């Protein structure tokens, strides 16, 4: 019970810190007028990451071994 309470408190503090940091960053981006550029950069990075993950060759490729035509 004590362990869970500690986890809860740490999680709340960490979440508050993350939100606070994001608010600071968002303010800087908004002031600088780079909001659209930042959105585009994040979107492009996300797209490239998705491509890299989904186009990665899968390890579970079945290799069929059979009589080859040029084995003679």
């Amino acid at each position, binding site marked *: 019970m004590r362990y*869970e309470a500690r986890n809860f408190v740490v999680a709340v503090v960490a979440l508050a810190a993350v939100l606070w940091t994001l*608010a*600071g960053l968002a303010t800087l981006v908004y002031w600088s007028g780079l909001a659209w550029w930042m959105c585009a950069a994040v979107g492009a990075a996300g797209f490239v990451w998705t491509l890299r993950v989904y186009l990665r060759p899968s390890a579970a490729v079945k290799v069929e071994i059979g009589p080859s035509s040029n084995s003679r």
Partner: protein
Amino acid sequence: MSTVVGRAVERLDERRRRTQVYWVTVASFAVAIAYVDGFWLTSMQGAVGAIERNEEPLGRWLRDSTLMVPLFFLGVSAAVLLARRWFGHRRSWVVKVGATALLVTVIGSAIGIAETAASSAYDYRLQSRDLTSVHQFHQTIADAKPGATAPTSGCTGICAEKQLTLASHVKALKLATGLLLVSNLVVVLWVMMFRGDRLWRSARADDEARVVEARSTVEAVLV
């Protein structure tokens, strides 16, 4: 859900333990630099900023500085960790503390300058918009200003006024850069006087702690 949170908290705890930095020292640097830089930002905004953003300076200073504290915290953490990696093995205490102070000053000032530049950019956007609307309503007044010529030839009227506004922001930013660097160095040295002996934990102390812990475990098993 609780297991996910628990695992995340454990990982966070592990990482915090591994970094071996005195977080109170890092927080002291971050808070001091954030509020000093916030003071210069508020002063600059009051001098050359847009009229729409005019408000009570004290409240504005407190709000903006508080908002930026986590970014300064991240910057100071990076500076202390870099200093530990680059100069942690040096024997000379002066080199360690001096290099850390310099790194914290440089990284803290970079964040402060970025904050000031972003605020100036926002002010300039608002002022440009105001100039355009004023020019549309009172074209004769805006054009008739004597001496409103920008350094670039062929730029007169509203273009010249916008360029003059931009030039005043650039000048203010240059001035603020020097002020930020000097005041941050002074603040960092002040904090260093109080917390200079508690920047990071040495690897030897960590090993000794582990030995003591292991010895007590062995003793507990034997007894």
